[in-house]
């Protein structure tokens, strides 16, 4: 074993209790996953060895998968937060709910259909896949940013204005910090959806773990399908874990429900 691998394995071992606690908190997700894994193992005791045949594919496709998620999620954050901020401004008071309802309606369109439509317009490859995923990811971020900003008590804004803050200072020093928990919660939901929807990108030629899943289904090859499905599920869980940590440490203690003392 190389020293790098040793370090990595030590990190994994060190993180294991933390992960175990966290998994227990999310037993609603973790238990079904475990059940599926056990069922697969019962079905075919050598299933994990068979899955590991695809090790190289898994590594390559996981990276591709993550790239898709990073692009789509990154763009959704970069566009969704400003959109939520704009919609929450007093000027848009009359139209913001209407616009959000339209977004909501848009979100009911299955991601698969969005992908297909985006392929019709943008062709095949990474760009239409990122576009489709971005669209699917956007709504929770816009919605949470908007709701978070709208939920700030009026007296805080009055105090800020009365003490001589400019509208920009009110946004950056009062509104965004106080909405941060809700905004990150939106990002957390959005990224988890994004990771889970990304396998569909394979269908319009953008690769990712969907390649193993869909090919596995087509060939009725269970190990191949699981070689795509299990890493996808783990990625979704890991993303949720990572963003929840971000939420824990980034949001100030005074407004962080996860960090209330006692």
């Amino acid at each position, binding site marked *: 074993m190389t020293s790098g691998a040793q370090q990595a394995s030590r990190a994994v071992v060190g993180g294991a209790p933390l992960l175990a606690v966290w998994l227990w908190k999310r037993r609603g997700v973790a238990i079904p996953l475990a059940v599926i894994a056990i069922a697969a193992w019962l079905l075919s005791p050598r299933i994990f060895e068979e899955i590991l045949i695809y090790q190289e594919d898994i590594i390559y496709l996981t990276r591709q998968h993550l790239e898709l998620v990073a692009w789509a999620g990154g763009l959704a954050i970069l566009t969704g937060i400003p959109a939520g901020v704009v919609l929450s401004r007093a000027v848009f008071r009359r139209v913001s709910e209407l616009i959000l309802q339209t977004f909501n309606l848009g979100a009911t369109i299955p991601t698969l259909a969005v992908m297909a439509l985006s392929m019709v317009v943008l062709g095949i490859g990474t760009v239409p896949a990122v576009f489709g995923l971005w669209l699917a990811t956007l709504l929770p971020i816009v919605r949470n940013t908007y709701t978070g900003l709208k939920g700030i*008590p009026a*007296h*805080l804004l*009055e*105090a*800020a*204005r*009365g*003490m*001589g*803050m*400019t509208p920009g*200072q009110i946004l950056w*020093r*009062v509104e965004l*910090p*106080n909405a*941060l928990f809700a905004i990150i919660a939106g990002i957390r939901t959005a990224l988890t959806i994004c990771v889970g929807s990304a396998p569909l990108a394979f269908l319009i030629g953008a690769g990712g773990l969907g390649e193993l899943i869909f090919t596995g289904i087509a060939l009725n090859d269970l190990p191949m399908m699981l070689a795509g499905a299990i890493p996808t599920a783990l990625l979704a869980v890991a993303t949720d874990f990572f963003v929840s940590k971000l939420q824990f440490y980034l949001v*100030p*203690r*005074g*407004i962080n429900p996860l960090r*209330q*003392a006692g």
Partner: protein
Amino acid sequence: MIRLDRVTKVFDTPSGPITAVDDVSLEIERGQICVLLGPSGCGKTTTMKMINRLVQPTSGEIWVDGRDTSKVDPVELRRSIGYVIQQIGLFPNKTIGDNICVVPDLLGWDRRKSRQRAAELLEMVAMDPAVFMNRYPNELSGGQQQRVGVIRALAADPPVMLMDEPFGAIDPINREAIQDEFLRMQAALKKTIIFVSHDLDEAVKMADRIAIFRAGRLEQFATPDRLLANPSSPFVESFLGTDRALKRLRILRVRDVMQTDAVLLSVEDSLAQGRELMAASGLPAMVVVDAQGRPRGIVSESAVANGGGSVREHCVAVNAAVAIEDDLRAAVSTMFAHNLSVVPCVDGDGTVRGVLTFQAISRHLAIPEART
């Protein structure tokens, strides 16, 4: 210091224009607390918010510290005026230290200097900076939050403060304590303060001047004592309540009402002398003092009525004396508690400086029309 000159505010609402403030003129001197008082919807808060331009006057001029506020940038104006609201409005995402330093930070003060100032202010309201500087607002009690709300407004040392029912959300016991603490601070700081309230008792306690509003108009602008003694209209009179004479007890000081020329008895006097002096004074009882002028007790009319000996033998020791700096309310309470119609008034050294009688109090409280 603050001058409102024929200020009017008309709000345009879907159901037509509403005049919230109607032709109000007032002038508040430097270092005074002016309480804007009235029922809700009377225009007192709107009047206050026009001073720091949170609300733009429809017409009229407002001058603060020699500046016409309409000619000052509103952001700069607000940073130069302390602002306290009823809901306190501490920013929950900021620590107490950062909350106190909001305005200094906006003004670009050196961080060390502003945090030093925050610590001093916390000490001023008896909150340990080591404990509280890095706490968050939700980790403080309501009373502590309110104190921080007030010292936050003081952080950049503004000459003028606007306070919108700052103690309205606190339980009565804490409110009294915070009011007293605030008055102590004000005695040293001498800020010019506009204080909105709907609580007459609070107004009487805090104010140098009270402005009573009704439906956007200024009904009366006077010192609390003048207001209670001479309400200018039936509205003001009914707003002040039927016990307004009793409310004046709070404002009046023992020093102003006590009889300084009342004859005191000495423990060495003979009872016969006492009888004579009491008859001459017309008082129902007399205060007895020792050689140093400290109160020794009280002799009543019946005690001196007959018999002989010295005053010392007949005087009833009473440990009830009122301080000349006390308000009359405390003094009257003492008199009731000890069943005394006459009580000695002592200065800081414990020397008797005068005598307070119910008779003098009721004479002082009688409203002018009823005086004969």
